[in-house]
């Protein structure tokens, strides 16, 4: 399941140096838990995003390991410190080996 996966990230455009900002992320994904059955009673195989990371200029902000108990379209809200201008890099790792990436720049001012 790799079609129609769209990451959405909300990061402020600018911050003052050292400020703590709140980041919201959401990625559209089925997150098939491996518990459900189809109409014929066969178990639908698990297909989830199992890891999410956020980095700022190469330094780690948060690293989340996900299990099937995460809801469809996994959503995360967390805080990050902005020491300087740069790029936030968001990465989602799918069970099928796909990697979804999103980058957001932030300026100081």
């Amino acid at each position, binding site marked *: 399941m790799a079609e129609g996966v769209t990451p959405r990230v909300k990061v402020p455009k600018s911050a003052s140096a050292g400020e703590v900002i709140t980041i919201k992320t959401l990625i559209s994904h089925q997150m098939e838990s491996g518990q459900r059955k189809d109409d014929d009673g066969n178990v639908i195989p698990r297909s989830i995003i199992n890891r999410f990371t956020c980095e700022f200029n190469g330094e780690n902000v948060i690293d989340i*390991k996900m299990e099937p108990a995460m809801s469809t379209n996994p959503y995360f809200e967390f805080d990050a410190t902005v020491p300087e201008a740069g790029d936030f890099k968001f990465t989602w790792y799918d069970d099928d080996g796909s990697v979804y990436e999103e980058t957001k720049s932030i300026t100081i001012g």
Partner: protein
Amino acid sequence: MDFSRRETFGLGLGALALMALPVGASASTIEEMIAEFTGGADMADTGVTLTAPEIAENGNTVPIAVSAEGASSILVLATGNPTPSVGTFTFGPLAGARSASTRIRLAKTQELVAIAKLEDGTFARTSAEVKVTIGGCGG
């Protein structure tokens, strides 16, 4: 698709067995998962906060938030789910606060457990009871 009476009965039995299995298995695995995370260390009762609704009408998306001052990682477990582990939040050097929120699935009314690994090497544990009106695992 047509099933004979006998086949239908067999399918029903199989489904029942599948449903019964994970519930029976989970009690010991939760203890094992906690032990794996903490290495068997003692856990303090304070120091970690788990915010979850008292009543969740839809078990498919239950908003939760975890936070713990000075935590390096937080493990969340849903004790009543077929697979109890929910996720592990690991905070890096640029994390603004040791907190995060997300949405999770809950199969039924159950207890949520959050265990924080603090930077000084100790562990803290908390739990919250969530009443679920409609289960979210489609079992």
